[in-house]
């Protein structure tokens, strides 16, 4: 590094002094780059509307027993399989989008030791990976997810331990929470997507078994579910939209 004398103020009539420049959004220096960005977006928006002709594959269906989803692309099938079938809880057959969420589900739902420990300490961990917070109850965790991680407040979180049966909605997992009535007659269930899990198999309506810890045979343990039933994206969000309209 070359030696630098102490900085002196400029000698009149000269006035230069080195200065870092900040450019807010409308600064003239950014104008040309912004124009280029607009032109790029122009191209994109126009080209996106041109439907790309994909080579046609005849439709095929998912080979998992009980799943009636139909596809015409391998990508679509791959995505569906990863979302719904790769991580399935061996206890209750719910599917989950990640091993992480499956692990949490198994811990909180099928581990009696968890329930015991939860009485004494904060055991409900935040679902967002990288966040180390833990909570005394799933409600507290829900509040945290909504406040800090911006989950919609009407996400369907825990099913209460005693399942509330309702004749109208006996097939949907949504209905357990009586405070959020939903009229789902208007639409058919939309096709499930990456964020939305509707368990295909029968819902277990009995209260959770609080039997002693079950040690699973290894192969069962490998069946891992993705989304905990405590989280419901598409369906819960829709109910959220409706509820929010009514509140406000």
């Amino acid at each position, binding site marked *: *590094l*070359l*030696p*630098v*004398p102490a*900085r002196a103020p400029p*000698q009149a*009539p*000269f*006035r*230069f002094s*080195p200065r*870092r*420049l*900040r*450019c*807010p*959004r409308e600064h003239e*220096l950014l104008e040309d*780059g912004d124009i*280029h*960005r*607009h032109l*790029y*977006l*122009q191209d994109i*928006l*126009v080209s*996106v*509307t041109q*439907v790309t002709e994909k080579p046609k594959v005849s439709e095929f269906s998912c080979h998992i027993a009980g799943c009636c989803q139909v596809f015409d*692309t391998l990508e*679509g099938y791959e*995505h569906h399989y990863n*979302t719904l079938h790769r991580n399935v809880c061996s206890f209750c057959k719910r599917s989950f*989008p*990640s091993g992480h969420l499956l692990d949490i589900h198994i811990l909180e739902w099928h581990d009696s030791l968890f329930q015991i420990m939860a009485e004494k300490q904060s055991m409900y961990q935040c679902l*967002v990976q*990288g*966040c180390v917070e833990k909570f005394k109850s799933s409600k507290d965790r829900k509040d945290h997810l909504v*406040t*800090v*991680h*911006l989950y*919609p407040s009407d996400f369907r979180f825990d099913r209460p331990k005693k399942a509330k049966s309702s004749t109208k909605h006996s097939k949907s997992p949504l209905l357990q929470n009586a405070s959020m009535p939903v*009229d789902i007659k*208007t*639409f058919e269930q*939309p096709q499930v*997507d*990456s964020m939305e899990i509707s368990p295909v198999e029968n819902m277990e309506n009995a209260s959770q078994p609080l039997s002693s810890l079950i040690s699973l045979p290894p192969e069962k343990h490998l069946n891992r579910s993705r989304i905990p039933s405590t989280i419901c*994206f598409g*369906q819960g*969000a*829709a109910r959220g*939209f*409706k509820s*929010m*309209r009514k509140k*406000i």
Partner: protein
Amino acid sequence: MVCCLQSVIVLFVALRKARKQQQLISKRLLREDTQNGEGKAGMEIPTDPLSEQEVLQLLRDTQKGTEERKKSLSCLRQALQHKETQQKFVRLEGSMRVLIGLFTSSLADVQMEAAHCLHELSHSSDPAVAEACLPATSYLLTYLSGHSIEFTSPHEAVLEGLGYVLSQLLQAKEASIEIIPLVLDSALPQHMLQLVCSNLELGMGVAVEFAWCLHYVVCSCVNNALLISQGIMSTLVLLLLELASMVSKAVADGLELLICPVLRCLSNLLAEEMEGCNMQVQDERLLVALFTFMQYFLNHHLFIVQECLWLLNNLTADEPFFCSAMLTLDLIPALLQLLPCSRMVALLVLTVLCNIAEKGCAYCQQLHQKAVLSSLISILTLSDAEVAGQCLELLHLLFLHWPEAAADFFTQAGLQALEQHQHHPELQERVRALMNLATQPTAASPCSLVSSAAVPSSLP
């Protein structure tokens, strides 16, 4: 939480207004491409708004098989240009849920059409429509921050669409009050940074969108200290190095769209002048990267040269590290070659040279050795007042710290170049101050007495 929601509603309503004033290009485009027509059989562009029953039917059709779905979505998008149709749509039970579901589907075409529908809705000035769209914002943010995002090609299109939507939201006037603080509070910046830096060969579109998102967050100056403390600057420097290596291999199609926002982030973050932010960038390879970009994009995208020079100014203004590196890496000739490009570029080049010269005599001596003077004399002769003024500042610094340069200047007919400007009101004082030096004997500057061992010679 309630007041947060309410404020986001206010934001959405205001967003509509803001977007009507700005961003007219993207809105105009969506209209244009609809009018060009897609030529799909049996689909006419509706001139009248649809009835409630028709909207309901369309929505049901979007849940059927693939081909029907795409057509129906496209119809829906066109229909949603009408305010009345928008209102009917949001009143339908579960309509937003369906649209969001389609937006996150695994089929890229469906995603994009759904994105267009959402985009259409987002243009509404009707508070009821805004209210219905409101949860979509938090859902979108959740979609990004709630999961570790795997980079598979079905996801690529939706991620790019999400990044685009977010980049639009972040530009609203109220964004700095309402949305950006929420974004900064979440893990979103780290996710965005991840998306900017990874899978460049496959996911350039995604990286571009999220880089622009980062730029809008940074230039709003809501909480750049937080971002700096999370180490964003060193990540961006490494990214620039990688991009420079791609450029040097000529694998650079469209790369300027990614380079530009990254440069801007770094420059604005440096302008925060935070403790420790200098350390995050002190890598002289960054200079090589900047000059690689400038050389490559000189002929077709001059704005990249401008923005690289802005960053160069912020790097050289205070810290001698980069001033030294400019000399030892022998980048001064390349810098001088940029002088004729444009007025703005010339101003920035001269400012950077002033930054270097201001550091003292060892630096001025080296600048002199790099034949700065002849370039200055040419530019002085050709230029407008502002560029000439910056030239004069530079000459003053050079002569102040390294008087030998003054003598040299006058033997190269510098006096005539000065005389040209001696009557200009903005320049005359400074011109005369410099002209006086022509008549004075060359004083030995204190630093010329410094032993030459302290002044490393430049590397070839």
